[in-house]
């Protein structure tokens, strides 16, 4: 095999206006590569596991950057860096769930340049796939991770369909819990996609992790005001406390009325190819107060229906424990 450590030739575009970027995205479609913070880009390209014809650098487009308040929501431009998300006072005050999640992304160096959009649309971290193997996710006809001797400790418990990779994004779980909307623009249209529908599993599209189509650009994320300043809990358990992906993470947004849960959205990361909503837990917690007792009553609901692989059944008790901690919070 070759060394895989030199970028291939490609055209670089650095548009300053979104329309120009959209035109370029439309022109190159599958053969174009959208560049945000570059943290999921250069590995692929240097490894030559992906060889786009053109790189479209979005960092020069001012309208894709920044955090704005609107009547019903707060809107975060897709190219806003994670550190800007973390340090924003409004987000800290009203949507600390997202801030907590963003704080646990990778490392300070990566958060300084990594963008929210990039964190959301990053590709699967399955080591077989990242190796550049022609697996299902790469358009092949086999999954190496889900085989009798596959090394799949970090892989999925739910929703696998041929591919067993998991969603690696920390902010995705928080945004699904916060009922965020993703704004996707193309030359022809603007789509507003519920965060939950934005992430797609391998049963629907095995070579993509989001519903973004070639030619589309994720321009912004909108978080509805209805979840402002509610009760939040975020925790990520990874092998390492910095620069690592979640073994399991949990993002919970709960409305409380006199200490009783009136609405809840609870999402786990690292257990499915998309952020995984714990519908049974959400349903069961309604009308209950947050307590150890409630946690005990919910025992077993989170991991119900899981299909563990060779090396990942530890994620079942971990999911349960994280729900317990959210209930205790």
């Amino acid at each position: 095999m070759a060394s895989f450590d030199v970028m291939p030739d490609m055209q670089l575009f650095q548009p300053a206006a979104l329309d120009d970027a959209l035109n370029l995205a439309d022109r190159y479609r599958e053969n174009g590569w959208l560049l945000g913070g570059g943290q999921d880009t250069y590995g692929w390209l240097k490894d030559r596991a992906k060889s786009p014809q053109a790189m479209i650098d979005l960092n020069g487009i001012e309208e894709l950057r920044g955090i704005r308040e609107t009547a019903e929501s707060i809107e975060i431009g897709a190219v806003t860096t994670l550190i800007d998300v973390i340090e924003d006072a409004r987000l800290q005050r009203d949507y600390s769930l997202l801030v907590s999640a963003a704080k646990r992304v990778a490392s300070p160096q990566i958060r300084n340049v990594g963008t929210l959009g990039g964190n959301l649309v990053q590709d699967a971290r399955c080591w077989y796939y990242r190796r550049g193997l022609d697996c299902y996710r790469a358009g092949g006809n086999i999954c190496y991770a889900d085989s009798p001797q596959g090394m799949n400790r970090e892989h999925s418990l739910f929703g696998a369909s041929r591919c067993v990779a998991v969603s690696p994004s920390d902010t995705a779980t928080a945004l699904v819990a916060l009922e965020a909307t993703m704004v996707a623009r193309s030359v022809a249209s603007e789509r507003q996609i519920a965060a939950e529908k934005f992430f797609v599993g391998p049963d629907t599209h095995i070579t993509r992790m989001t519903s973004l189509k070639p030619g589309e650009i994720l321009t912004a994320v909108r978080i509805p005001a209805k979840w402002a300043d509610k009760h939040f809990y975020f925790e990520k358990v990874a092998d390492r406390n910095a620069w690592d992906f979640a073994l399991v993470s949990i993002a919970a947004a709960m409305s409380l009325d006199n200490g009783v849960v009136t609405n809840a959205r609870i999402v786990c990361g690292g257990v499915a190819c998309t952020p995984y909503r714990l519908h049974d837990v959400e349903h069961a917690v309604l009308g209950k107060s947050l307590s150890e007792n409630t946690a005990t009553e919910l025992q077993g609901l989170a991991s119900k229906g899981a299909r563990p692989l060779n090396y990942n059944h530890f994620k079942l008790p971990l999911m349960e424990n994280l729900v317990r901690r959210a209930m205790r919070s």
Partner: protein
Amino acid sequence: MSNYRHIGKDFVPPDIVGKVTGKAKYAEDFSADGMVFARVYTSPMAHGRVTNIDTSAVLEMDGVVGILTADDLPPVEAPNAPMLTNSPAYVGEPILAVAALDEKTAEDALALIRVDIQPLPYAVDPLDSLVVGGPDAREEGNVYVRSREGSGFRTVKWTREQIDEFRAGKEPTGESVSEWSYGDLDQGFAAAKVIIEEPFVTVGYAHMSMEPRTAMAYWQNGVCYVYGSAQSQSFMIPGLANLLGIEQKDVVLISENTGGGFGSKIGAYPMMALPAWFSKKIGRPVQLRITREQEYYLGSARVGFQGWIKVGFAANGRVTATDVFIVEDIGPNATGGDGSSAGEAVSIVYDPESMRFRGVPVLTNTTPRGAQRGPGQNQIAAIMAPIMDKAAKELDVDRLEIRKINAAHHGTTVYADQEPVTSAYMKEALDMGAAMFDWTGKRNKPRRNGSKVIGLGIGQGYHSAGATGYDGLVRITPDGKIHLHSGVGNLGTYSYASTTRSAAEVLKCGWDNCVVHHGSTEANLPWSSYQAGSNTSFTHQRANYVAAMDAVNKLKEIAAATLGGSAADYDIADERVFRSGNTGQSMSYAQAAERAVELGGAYSGQTWPSDIHEVTQRAVQNLAGSGLIGVAKDNLPQEGVIPGFAVAFTEIELDLETGKYEILDYVGIAECGTVIHPQGLATQMKGGAVWGMGMAGHERHVYDPQNGLPANVGYHQCGVPTYLDIPSSMRTGAVDLPDPQSPFGARGIGEPAMGCSVAAVTAAVADALDGHVFNRTPISADMILNHVAGRPQSFKPLQTNNY
């Protein structure tokens, strides 16, 4: 604390400024006129035979300068590592190299080359190879024996039942190929009140050198200049000359700085020689930059263990008998020896009254193995610490006391031959650590807080820490400068400089007036030891001492010849040699150096001692006439094993709900004789601690057994601990009592600094889990979660190279 002027004092090593400012040059930073760039094409499969290489698509490619294959190189007999091979035995083994005007062209060319490889059976877990009918990692056999009686391939197979029983934790009954023992084992176990018997696994993992083994080479007038990344300096020369097929005098090695070797760059290695061969073929300087990913394939890894241990304890905690059996994962190139070293470490750290070691080194088609910080000693330290605690619990003996009862001391005899030690202060180290850590106070603190549990651990690390017989070389020039020539490699510990301070101490000179020469054969460096095995401090303190003593004698002789009287009448101070009791009758070092040049002969290097190494001889020849030369081989008396010890105390808080633990406190105590460089020692102790924490909880090889593929080909996947996985502050100390066989009392410390850490952490985890022993490194969050939840572990017993 001593009254020395340099020994035991901090100083600024000369390369510090370059390292802080980024001006320090590593192998990759050097270039030469007309230099071209090489890249290697490596095996995509774990074991195979190259049947065809089709380079037709690149021969005429613009910018491609040449192609090198195994057929261009002298044949290398398995299991030795070749530069290029037609019989790859691991994923990532180099098969051919392409040189081009730039790296991109070379990379583009690699993509067009077609190499057909016939796959052969492969093994990534030694037990899969050891079982009857299992695959052999090499066509010649599955076991490689290295011994004084002779080395060679063997085919060793155990029955399915024997493997199953081993996995089930029973004493292995399969064939071993090496064995040693002392004392009466049966009697030892008969005398034991408690016997602990455990199977264990330590998974191998990458050396993780930040600087990949890049090299650049060219030829000039028959001399080969190699810019490489090396742990050692002078020690590399014979091996490099051998790899290049030339005489030692025709090799120049430049290695000013090294971005980590950790045991993987001790001696000359194939990738260091490859650019030189390529350069010879195409007649241009060639740089071969090994990529990050390739460094994980061929950059060496720690030997993995699958073993069984049985330890007998008397009622007072004294170890009466130890029986160890280790199956070693020695990779494809049969590099190892860790198993027996582990046994030796047990024999000194716990000083069992009787002991047996048995081992079988099994070849696998995984990354080639090499010595990694505490090779063997540190694996067994991690396993032994929780076992000692288990025994202490059963015997109701304090965990600190059981270690003190078995602690090595001056009278301890060690290893198979029960040799003496030069000195040993293990008990003192334990006491010092316990006091600094507040062992008694911490032991009585509440342990449980919600889902979190406190765990305390004590670890002990060991490695032999010294060698003898190397050369020292100092020089005083007529400008009064004192030149300290160090053949020690600059592997990051500053020992290349700190050991020369013993010469400065002997010469009673100021440090500001000293110039340390290192990093290039052309700097005229003496023959020096390998920078490995924790030996440098002991070894080169002695070598510098004898060279400086030679210089002092010559200073006195020159003074006597110049000023009258005999050499015995003279003394030195303040860079002057003077008549004792009459400081007025004196000459400066500068004057003496000038006189040395005039006098010639041995004084200025025209002659030299007959017993110095040819490397030193050449250095002296080159320096002859430039000043007063002090040169000697270390013939100081030495007897017995030179030990380096370290102990660690750690406090962790383990969360039963996440399987994660935080290391709250860490105290590391060095027992390495006299401290010669306090800051260097503290850094060694902390660096070793971090490494141990990585081994205890994170770092491991993962191989897909179905396809023979490694998962660890980058920093992230290898799991090196980050700054948030280690304590924010660590405390260190040193016993600081001199070793009698070292002129200034110092022994080495590098490796034990890590062994004590991994042991303390595995012991602390067991303590937090009420004494549950995993008998495994690393102990990862999933293992703890499964244990707490009462679920089975995902891996089968004794499985290795898995998560």
